[in-house]
C-alpha cells in the first residue's frame, strides 16, 4: 500500500472513529422514551382475578353532538374515544411514566426539539392493515386543517412543524420551542387511520368508527338514549402483560341523561350500574331505601391521587380595587367558608389552601396558611390599605370612592353562597352587587376583562402547566386563562425554568414553589375541593382492592372492574327474596389498599 493510500486509509478510519465517537456522544445526549430497560409487566392495579365478558351500563351525561373526541372534547368522549383509538404511548397507571403503545419509542434530541417516533411493526388497525408513519402524519394534518373543528387539539400540535415521514415506521416531529409539554403532546396523540378518513369531511365523522386501533370497537347507537362499544378479540396488544385484567367488560353501554338528577333516579331504578355522585345533599340525604339498606347498591367513598379540580373567587387585579394585596387578603378573610361547608354542603368539602393540593403530601407538607374567617384581621388590613368607613353611611370609602364589588356570576346556584358573603362584607361597609349573566355573556365579559370578581372553577391535570394561568405575558392577552391578570417576576422565572425539565418529580418541586408564591398574592379567594370519589354501584362487580385506579375518578371502573358471576347471582337472589347482602367497606384509601 502506498503512503498516499495508507494516509487515505488512516484518514478514513479516523473519520469513521470520530463519527462513531461523536455519534456515541450524541446518542448519550439523546433521551429515549421509554428507557432501554423498560419491559412489559403486569399492571399493578389490575386484579389477576378479573374475568372477561358481560355488559356494564354506565351513565354518560348528555347525548354528545359527536363521539369523535377530536370534534367534541367532553370528558366522557375522552374516555370512550380513548378506548377505541390508541395513543402513540401509554401512561403507567402508578408512576405516570410513558409506556409503549402504537409507538415502541420516542427519541428526543439533546436540544429537546426533535422527536423521532418509532412505530411498533406489530401495530395493526382493526381491519388488519398496519399502522404506519403515514397515519401519524395524516393525524397531524387532519387536526391542523383550519376548516376542521378539532378544537383544543390544535393548540398543542401547533408548537410543531409539519412532521417528516422518515420511513413507513418512523416519523420525526420538530418543535418550534423546547418544552416538556411537547413530548406529552406527541405521546398522547390518538392516531387516525389514513386509509379510512382520507378524502372524507372529518367534521362529519361523528358517529361511525369502523376502523379503530384500540381494545374496543364502536357498537350500536340509539340516538339520545345509549351507545355501546364492544371488546375486540383481535387487538394486537391483547396478550401483553400490562393489559391483563384491564378492559374486562365485553360490552360497555353508555346511557345518556340530560341532567344528573334524572340520571340518579334512573340509576336507583336499575337502568344503569355505576354512578358517581357529585352533589353533597344527594350523597348525604338521598342514599337510603331498601336497595341501600340491603346493600344491593354499594356506597363507597374512594380516596386516591386524582388531581382535584379547584375553584375560587377570581379577582380582577387589573382594577384599582383589587390591585392592593392587603385588600385581596382582607376579602379572603371575610369569606366564611367553614359556615358554607357546614351549613350548605354537609361538611363534605376540604377548604383549599393550594391551587394544586395534590402536589403536597407527607413528604412535602403544605406550608400555605389557611386564610381563616376573621373580620378583625380583615378590618385591620383594609384600614392599612387606606379604606375608611364614612361616619354618615357606614360604608367603606377611599379617595371619595365607595367600596363596591360587582360579582359577575352565571349560575343561580351560587346565590346561596354569595348571600352569606354579601352579609359579611356589608358588616364592614362593603357592598356586593350580584350581576348574573348567562354563560355566553359571562364569557364575553371575562374575555374583555369586564368584571370585578367572579366564581371560576378549573380542572386539574396530572401534568401541570402553570404557564397559561400565572405567566405575566398571559395577563394582558384577552380571552386567555390568566383571568386575574396575575404578574410576578419570580413566578415568571420559575415558569421559564420548568419548561425544559422532563422529570415530573423535579418539575413538581418548582410547581410547589409557584403554588406558594401565587397563594401569597391571593389572586383568587380559594374555596374548597373534594379529594375523594363518591361511588354508588349495583353489587355485582369484582373490583381491584383499590376499587379505582391511582389518578382517575369513576371512569377507571370501566377499565378495571368486571362482572363477578357469583356476586351477580347473589344480588339477583337477594332482590328476589328481599334479603340483605353482606356490606362492603365504605371508606377506601388507595394508599392503604395498594400493595404494588
Amino acid at each position, binding site marked *: 500500500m502506498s503512503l498516499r493510500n495508507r494516509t487515505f486509509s488512516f484518514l478514513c478510519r479516523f473519520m469513521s472513529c470520530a463519527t462513531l465517537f461523536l455519534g456515541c456522544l450524541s446518542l448519550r445526549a439523546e433521551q429515549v422514551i421509554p428507557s432501554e430497560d423498560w419491559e412489559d409487566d403486569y399492571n399493578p392495579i389490575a386484579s389477576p382475578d378479573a374475568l372477561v365478558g358481560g355488559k356494564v351500563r354506565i351513565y354518560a351525561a348528555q347525548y354528545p353532538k359527536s363521539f369523535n373526541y377530536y370534534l367534541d372534547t367532553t370528558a366522557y368522549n375522552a374516555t370512550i374515544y380513548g378506548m377505541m383509538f390508541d395513543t402513540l404511548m401509554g401512561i403507567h397507571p402508578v408512576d405516570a411514566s410513558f409506556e409503549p403503545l402504537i409507538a415502541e419509542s420516542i427519541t428526543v434530541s439533546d436540544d429537546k426539539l426533535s422527536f423521532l417516533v418509532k412505530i411498533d411493526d406489530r401495530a395493526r388497525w382493526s381491519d388488519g392493515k398496519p399502522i404506519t408513519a403515514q397515519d401519524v402524519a395524516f393525524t397531524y394534518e387532519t387536526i391542523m386543517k383550519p376548516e376542521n373543528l378539532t378544537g383544543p387539539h390544535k*393548540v398543542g400540535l401547533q408548537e410543531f412543524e409539519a412532521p417528516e415521514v422518515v420511513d413507513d415506521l418512523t416519523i420525526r416531529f420538530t418543535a418550534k420551542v423546547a418544552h416538556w409539554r411537547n413530548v406529552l403532546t406527541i405521546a398522547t396523540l390518538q392516531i387516525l387511520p389514513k386509509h379510512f378518513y382520507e378524502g372524507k369531511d372529518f367534521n362529519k365523522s*361523528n358517529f361511525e368508527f369502523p376502523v379503530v386501533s384500540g381494545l374496543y370497537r364502536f357498537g350500536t347507537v340509539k340516538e339520545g338514549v345509549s351507545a355501546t362499544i364492544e371488546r375486540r378479540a383481535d387487538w394486537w396488544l391483547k396478550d401483553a402483560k400490562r393489559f391483563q385484567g384491564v378492559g374486562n367488560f365485553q360490552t360497555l353501554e353508555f346511557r345518556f341523561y340530560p341532567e344528573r338528577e334524572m340520571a340518579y333516579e334512573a340509576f336507583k331504578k336499575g337502568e344503569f350500574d355505576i354512578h358517581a355522585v357529585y352533589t353533597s345533599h344527594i350523597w348525604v340525604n338521598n342514599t337510603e331505601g331498601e336497595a341501600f339498606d340491603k346493600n344491593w347498591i354499594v356506597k363507597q367513598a374512594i380516596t386516591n391521587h386524582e388531581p382535584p379540580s379547584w375553584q375560587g373567587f377570581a379577582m380582577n387585579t387589573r382594577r384599582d380595587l383589587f390591585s392592593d394585596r392587603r385588600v385581596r387578603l382582607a376579602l379572603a378573610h371575610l369569606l366564611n367558608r367553614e359556615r358554607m361547608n357546614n351549613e350548605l354542603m354537609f361538611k363534605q368539602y376540604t377548604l383549599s389552601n393550594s391551587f394544586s393540593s395534590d402536589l403536597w403530601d407527607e413528604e412535602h407538607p403544605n406550608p400555605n396558611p389557611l386564610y381563616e374567617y376573621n373580620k378583625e384581621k380583615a378590618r385591620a388590613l383594609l384600614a392599612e390599605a387606606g379604606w375608611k368607613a364614612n361616619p354618615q353611611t357606614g360604608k367603606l370609602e377611599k379617595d371619595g370612592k365607595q367600596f363596591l364589588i360587582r360579582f359577575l356570576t352565571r349560575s343561580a346556584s351560587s346565590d346561596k353562597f354569595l348571600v352569606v358573603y354579601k352579609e359579611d362584607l356589608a358588616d364592614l361597609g362593603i357592598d356586593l352587587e350580584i350581576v348574573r349573566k348567562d*354563560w*355566553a*355573556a359571562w*364569557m364575553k365579559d371575562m374575555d374583555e376583562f369586564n368584571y370585578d370578581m367572579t366564581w371560576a372553577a378549573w380542572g386539574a391535570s396530572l401534568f401541570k402547566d402553570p404557564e*397559561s394561568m400565572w405567566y405575566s405575558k398571559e395577563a394582558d392577552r384577552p*380571552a386567555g*386563562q390568566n383571568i386575574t391578570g396575575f404578574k410576578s417576576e419570580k413566578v415568571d422565572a420559575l415558569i421559564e425554568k420548568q419548561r425544559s425539565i422532563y422529570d415530573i418529580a423535579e418539575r413538581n418541586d418548582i410547581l410547589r414553589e409557584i403554588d406558594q408564591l401565587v397563594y401569597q398574592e391571593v389572586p383568587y379567594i380559594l374555596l374548597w375541593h373534594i379529594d375523594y370519589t363518591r361511588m354508588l354501584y349495583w353489587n355485582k362487580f369484582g373490583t381491584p382492592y383499590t376499587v379505582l385506579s391511582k389518578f382517575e375518578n369513576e371512569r377507571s371502573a370501566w377499565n378495571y372492574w368486571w362482572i363477578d358471576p357469583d356476586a351477580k347471582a347473589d344480588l339477583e337472589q337477594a332482590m328476589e327474596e328481599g334479603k340483605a347482602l353482606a356490606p362492603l367497606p365504605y371508606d377506601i384509601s388507595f394508599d392503604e389498599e395498594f400493595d404494588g
Partner: protein
Amino acid sequence: MSDRAAYFLRRILLIFPTFIGITFLTYLLTQFVPGGPVEQAMMQMRGFDGSGVATRSESISEEQREAIRAHFGFDKPFLIRYYDWLVVNKMGMTVDSYKYSNKTVWQLISERFPVSLTFGIAGFVLTYLICIPLGIAKALRNGSAFDLASSVAVFTGYAIPAFAFGMLLKTVFSGTSEHFFDIFPIGGFRSEFFEEMSFWEKVKDQFMHMFLPVMCYVIGNFAVLTLLMKNSLLEQISQDYVRTVVAKGGSMKRAVWKHALRNALIPIATGFGGVLSIMFAGSVLIERVFNIPGMGLLSLEAIVGRDYMVFMGTLALTSIVALLGRVLSDFCYVLIDPRISFNKG
C-alpha cells in the same frame, strides 16, 4: 267574492309579510347575542368550557378564526345570510344543526314533531273531553257543593306549575322514592325496546309513558277552559231567549241542551286555532321533567346551546302554524256563529 271570503283571503295574504317580519327581526337579533357557534368553537378551542380545562390559548391564528367563521357562514354580509336562510336553505331546513352536526334542521324537526304531536293531541282531546262536561255540570249546579268542590280542585291544579306537578307525579308514581308507587316509567317517549314489542305491548308501553306527562299537560288547562265553559253557559242561560223557551212551556233541560249550549260553545271553539301551536311547540318544562324528546325540548336546547339554525327553524314553523291558527280560529267562529259579519259598515 263575499265579504267573508275577502276577509279570509286578506288574512291569509297578511301571513307572508308578518312571517318575514318575525323571522327577519329574530335572525337579526341572533347576530347580536353572544355565544354563537363561532364563539363556541373558539371557546372549545381554548379549552374553556366553563368547568375550565387547562389548555392553552395564545395561538389561535387569524386563519383558524376565519376558517371557523366561514364554516358557519359568518363571513357573508347579513342580508345575504338571511336570504340564504330563507330561500336557498328553505328556512334553514337544509342546513346542518350546530349541535347535532350530522343532521339537518328538518331531520331534527321531523323526528321530534310526531312526539309533540302525540302528546299535544292527547292532552288537547282529554282537556276538552273533561272540561266541557265539567263546565256544563258546574253551570247547571251553580253554587252547589259539587260546584264548590270542583272549583277548589280545578284552581289547585291551575295554581301548581305543570313542571312541579310533573315532579310530584314522578316522585309518587314512578318508583324513584321509597314508600311510594312504582307504576310508571320515569320518563322518555317509549321504552328502549319498543320496536321489538307486540302490538298490545306497544299500546301499553305508549300509554304508560304518556300517562303522567299528559296529566301535566291537562291539569294547567283545566281551570281556564272549565270556567270559560261554565261562565259562558251561565251567561246564555240568563239570556231572554232561554226564558222565552221556558215561558213557552219548554223544559229548562231542552232550553239548555238545544239552544244555550250551542251559543255557549262559541268562545270555546275560538280556542281551536291555538291548538295547532300547542301541538307544534310542545311543552318545554314537561318535556324536560319527563325527558321527552319533543319540540319543546329541542327549542330549549337550541336556545341554550345557541343552535341558531334549529332555533330559527322551529321559530319559523311555529310562527307559520300560529298565524294559520289565528285564521282557523276566526274560521271556526264564523262557522259556529252565522251572525258574524266582516262588513265595515
